[in-house]
């Protein structure tokens, strides 16, 4: 029998290399700040953050799989739990809770009470349309795409915009079956 998949990422989090939380927060802040200067449009910054997150996600999934011993999830519910309890803990040091399932189990919300990205952050009036943590939605989307799940990830609640928590909606669009990659005549 393979070892059971961990229910929480605490043990892994304790073993991986970590950086100082403030350094992490401030570095991320500096990146967002720089993007705002470079791209000017808040919408463009949202897009860019999402793209950066995606690029992180498609690499991060391998580290997640290699270190977490999560081998397969029977359904999307288990996947969501693994992201919330193991994934977020491993890479961000916090856990999320999974709520708001829809009837057919293809869409749910990850709720973050505590978000290390936003310490010391206040949005000025000029950036009201900014999804400051949009990188996270990109990471989740990229990582899930590598395990053949096409998803749509959107922010529902954002504390920087006056809500009471961070809520990320993950919607499963389709699962891509594995295909033989070569054509016959090659």
């Amino acid at each position, binding site marked *: 029998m393979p070892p059971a998949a961990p229910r929480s990422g605490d043990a892994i989090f304790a073993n991986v290399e970590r950086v100082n939380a403030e350094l992490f927060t401030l570095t991320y802040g500096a990146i967002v700040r720089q993007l705002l200067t470079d791209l000017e449009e808040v919408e463009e910054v949202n897009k860019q953050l999402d793209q950066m997150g995606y690029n992180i996600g498609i690499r991060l999934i391998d*580290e997640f*799989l290699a270190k977490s011993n999560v081998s397969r999830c029977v359904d999307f519910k288990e996947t969501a739990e693994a992201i919330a309890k193991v994934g977020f803990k491993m890479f961000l040091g916090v856990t999320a809770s999974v709520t708001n399932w829809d009837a057919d189990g293809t869409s749910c919300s990850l709720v973050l009470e505590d978000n290390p990205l936003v310490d010391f952050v206040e949005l000025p009036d000029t950036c009201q349309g900014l999804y400051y943590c949009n990188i996270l939605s990109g990471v989740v989307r990229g990582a899930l795409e*590598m*395990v053949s799940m096409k998803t749509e990830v959107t922010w529902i609640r954002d504390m920087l915009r006056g809500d009471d928590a961070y809520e990320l909606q993950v919607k499963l669009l389709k699962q891509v*079956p594995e295909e033989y990659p070569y054509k016959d005549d090659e």
Partner: protein
Amino acid sequence: MQFFGGSEISPLPPLPTASGNNAHMMYVFNRNGVCLLYREWNRPLRTLNAQQDHKLMFGLLFSLKSLTAKMDPTNAEKGNLGVPQLPGQGCSFHSFRTNTYKLSFMESPSGIKIILVTHPGTGDLRESLKYIYNLYVEYVVKNPLYSPGTPIRSELFDKTLDQYVRGLG
């Protein structure tokens, strides 16, 4: 006079002695069938060119996986043979052995396939393949200069890999 040999139809090839290395070669593929890495330590016989060889290996694994899932007596849910499965669906094999070599196989849910071909007397290599997957993460995935989906060119990774595989029993 004996026509049919002893109990074994053909004896195991002699254990390599010189380097203490009993691995023949290794492949790493991604989901799209791109051979990310090919390492060779001891392969006296080559019949195909490299590209055909990689394709044949990938095709073998792909078909074998589909076959093993189809033959699974414990699982009622199986598609038709050759019909693509979702990743993680169905069972999978982790090694097969012939009288001249043993092939060990690991696939991650993200589609990375690691194949190690060794002497047939080698024991269970599942943990070793997992370790190699971890090396891949540390040396390849975390390298910002590496673009995902392209063949790996990293001397450091090759060296670490060689060292590790040399130490395998």
